[in-house]
């Protein structure tokens, strides 16, 4: 008989921080609390009461798009843990761009940014993160595409079938995948821009 486990790991691709936060909160609502995140793809959950926790994901990057210093990151983590949240450990190549905070729902509403300036700073950081990722992905896409074309043209067997080498197909497939990721990363940027603009308009008449 299969043993009932209190833990499970799911592979999920969330391209935006908003999507990730929404997904994690949905899992909490169904009684699964995140306990470990690996490479931003594998999420380990532990059984909890449905709706027992609220998750907030915040950026560990500053509004100028730079990664926050270790000291600043520690400051943010200290403020979060002091207010009753736990930080979900993240194993990643560069695990310094996001902070996952989980807080019991019984402690009340869990909002990280409670004023307009902090919200603007957070959305600006998210948008810059996406812009940087879009540029990075696009460059890799172009590189893959050019590489694939070069392989197909230059390495084509001169005699016989004249077939395209397998390597070129791999390059084209990778480029296609990068193009999909590029589009997915590009889509949320206008929505962040709209949110920032609305908040700036709001700030002109209230705090």
């Amino acid at each position, binding site marked *: 008989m299969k043993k009932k486990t209190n833990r499970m790991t799911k592979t999920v691709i969330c391209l935006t921080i908003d999507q990730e936060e929404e997904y994690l909160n949905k899992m909490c609502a169904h009684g699964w609390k995140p306990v470990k995140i690996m490479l931003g793809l594998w999420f380990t959950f532990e059984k909890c009461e449905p709706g027992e926790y609220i998750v907030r994901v915040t950026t560990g990057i500053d509004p100028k798009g730079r990664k926050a210093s270790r000291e*600043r990151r520690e400051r943010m983590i200290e403020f979060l843990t002091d207010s009753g949240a736990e930080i979900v450990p993240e194993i990643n190549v560069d695990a310094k761009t996001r902070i996952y905070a989980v807080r019991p729902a019984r402690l009340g509403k869990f909002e990280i940014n409670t*004023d307009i300036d*902090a919200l603007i700073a957070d959305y600006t950081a998210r948008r810059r993160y996406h812009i940087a990722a879009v540029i990075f992905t696009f460059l890799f896409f172009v590189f893959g595409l050019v590489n694939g074309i070069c392989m197909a043209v230059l390495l084509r067997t001169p005699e016989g079938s004249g077939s395209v080498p397998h390597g070129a197909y791999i390059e084209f497939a990778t480029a296609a995948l990068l193009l999909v990721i590029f589009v997915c990363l590009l889509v949320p940027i206008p929505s962040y821009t709209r949110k920032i603009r609305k908040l700036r308009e709001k700030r002109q008449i209230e*705090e």
Partner: protein
Amino acid sequence: MNESKGALTEAVYYILISLYTPLHGYGVIQNVEKLSGGRVKLGAGTLYGAINTLLTRGWIVECGESGERKKEYIITQSGRRAVLDEIDRLQELLDNGRRVVSETTQTQENE
């Protein structure tokens, strides 16, 4: 300092007046909530942004660690000046607001 002449946000104002005595981050959150009668609840992100800005501007400084090894902050002389400027600004807002409202009300009653 020119920066001290602008209006402070509510969060920054409350953080600054909380730091007339040394406090750590969560102490600030609790004090602000108490001072505002529960109306202003600072989120960790809001406090984080404000503390970073205030440290950069030199309006507050770190002044050691509390018993639980948490960093404590205290207002500086330039921070105190910014608070006094803000109190003057708020006083002006109140005075002008009260004067205009009472004058208008009186005129309307006389008519």
